[in-house]
């Protein structure tokens, strides 16, 4: 067995026999299903209007009643006087109320709440439709065909989104994938801190240096162990997110048509991507805590990586879509995972991502290798 593998075996034992690391490696991926199910339910509740009760201070005619009925009884309407409505609202028995003064309708809603915001949208549309009905009636009374007035232009929506895609599914899948990159970074931060500075602090590093090993073999073993733990953690993340996505698909209205590009090719490319990201982040973590003498010192140095882990999220929020993004390490990781699951695979972009990751990993590895030949990194 090569010395790198023997060294790797030693480091893996250190990681997987430490309850603290095991909890990090296992706990981090479990946040993804919690996030998916939590956010999924939240979006679904935002989309689904239910049990909203409002008050009005006038009697509805048949046309307006019909319009409310078309909403499937999701909005309950009560009719009371202005003072009574105010009291009902203050007692939180109704979510809002509408006061009519001649032909002027005023909506009293708290738009800082989700219900108020939803009602504002629904009632505006309702009164717009009611206004159109009244307008059409007026035109008919004056012998004018309503279509001649209301049908001057016609607007149709030709859906361009792929089947099963909408803003919410894209958002939830995209953030789950970015979170996988964050898992890699957090796992690398913790394992590297312990394997590099922790070993020095525990006094076992001197023992390691007495073995017939080259510095490259020592780093190789450590890097391999860090990458292994990152891959295990992120793959657990992949396997826990799929059931969570299926759960929201089966239990929510918003995500019922969700389609995931899960096939052998995307799975293989995902694993390759996670390995490449893990290698880069792992060697970056070793580089950062290389000269740290104590665990605390290493932790503070490696904390820089927590900002790095946010890069994919920022680029996603900023909706950066330039091809240059595929050449920016780590940011390209989140992007490529997004591409794999949310659009078709672009092999040129995948190659750009892979090459960039390999080059940066190699350059850092050469630097770290030199760093470890210097005694300042050892003692």
């Amino acid at each position, binding site marked *: *067995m090569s*010395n790198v593998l*023997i060294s790797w*075996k*030693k480091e893996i*034992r*250190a990681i997987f*026999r*430490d309850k603290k690391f095991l909890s990090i490696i296992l706990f981090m991926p479990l946040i993804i299903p919690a996030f998916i199910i939590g956010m999924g339910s939240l979006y679904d509740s935002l989309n689904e209007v239910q049990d909203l009760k409002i008050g009005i201070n006038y009697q509805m005619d048949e046309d307006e009643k019909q319009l409310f009925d078309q909403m499937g009884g999701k909005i309950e309407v009560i009719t009371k006087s202005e003072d009574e409505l105010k009291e009902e609202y203050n007692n939180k028995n109704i979510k809002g109320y509408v006061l009519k003064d001649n032909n002027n309708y005023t909506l009293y809603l708290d738009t800082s709440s989700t219900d108020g915001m939803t009602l504002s949208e629904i009632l505006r549309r309702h009164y717009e439709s009611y206004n159109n009905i009244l307008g059409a009636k007026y035109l008919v009374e004056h012998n004018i065909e309503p279509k001649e007035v209301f049908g001057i232009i016609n607007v149709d929506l030709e859906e361009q989104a792929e089947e099963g895609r909408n803003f919410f599914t894209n958002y939830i899948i995209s953030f789950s994938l970015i979170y996988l990159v964050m898992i890699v970074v957090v796992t690398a931060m913790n394992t590297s801190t312990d394997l590099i500075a922790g070993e020095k602090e*525990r*006094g*076992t590093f*001197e*023992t390691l*240096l*007495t*073995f*017939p*090993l*080259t510095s490259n073999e020592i780093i190789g073993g450590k890097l391999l162990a860090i990458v292994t733990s990152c891959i295990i953690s992120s793959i657990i993340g992949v396997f826990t997110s799929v059931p969570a996505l299926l759960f929201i698909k089966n239990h929510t209205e918003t995500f019922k048509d969700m389609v995931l590009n899960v096939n052998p090719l995307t799975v293989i490319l995902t694993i390759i991507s996670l390995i490449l990201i893990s290698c880069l982040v792992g060697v970056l973590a070793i580089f950062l805590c290389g000269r740290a003498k104590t665990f605390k010192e290493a932790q503070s140095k490696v904390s820089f990586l927590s900002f790095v882990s946010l890069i994919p999220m920022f680029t996603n929020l900023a909706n950066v879509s330039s091809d240059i993004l595929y050449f920016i390490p780590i940011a390209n990781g989140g992007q490529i995972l997004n591409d794999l699951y949310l659009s078709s695979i672009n092999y040129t972009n995948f190659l750009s991502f892979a090459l960039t990751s390999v080059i940066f990993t190699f350059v850092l590895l050469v630097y770290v290798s030199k760093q470890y030949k210097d*005694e300042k990194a*050892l*003692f």
Partner: protein
Amino acid sequence: MIEIKNIVKEFEKLDENKKKIKIKADNDISFEVKEGEVVGLLGPNGAGKTTLLRIIAGIMKPNKGSITIDDKNYKKNELEIKKMISFLSGNTKLYKELSPMELMQMCADFYKVDKKEASNRIDDIVKRFSMQKFKNQRIETLSTGQTQRVGIARCLVHNPKYYIFDEATSGLDIISSKVILDFIKEEKKNGKGIIYSTHYMEEAENICDRVILLNKGRVIATGTPKQILKETNTDNLRDAFFALIGDDKNE
């Protein structure tokens, strides 16, 4: 034979004015260690013992001078030399998450000991140090005495020709110290060359064939304990040391 020639090791430190200055931890140190010989390296804290032993063990590199072990030097044969020696320090800790068996197997793997040979040797070591009861327990669960035995046991797996002990008995009770001292005597009989560093002068007097007294990175005396006592006209190595450093003792 281990040949240490004119070793100089410098470290950079900040002085009172926070300017970088160079301090010589070891200054022109030379001596030899033959097979079947125990050479004691004696001196107070900061004398340069640990630095020198780390250089001999290949953990550090000297600024000047050379280390030759059986006509091989670190520049050309680093890994071969490391296979010939074993380093045990009082500061060195063991991998607490491993069991003694796993630790010894790992050492055997690193030193490329043949599988069958490693298995036989590990069995012998387990018997020799009475480790049967705890050989599969994690090291973190062992007592200090048991851990000390495991520490010595892992040094034996590759059957080294030379041992380097750096303050190996420091902080240990008399029973644990005796295990190490008995081990040194036994390995000496087996023809192994041993460098033994300590600041317990009495200990060195008992087990060392020759001693090298160090102070502030320099050799201040070499010879058998008897020779040094005779030269300094003292009864023990502690007094001999103070006699040799003279005015320096107040610093």
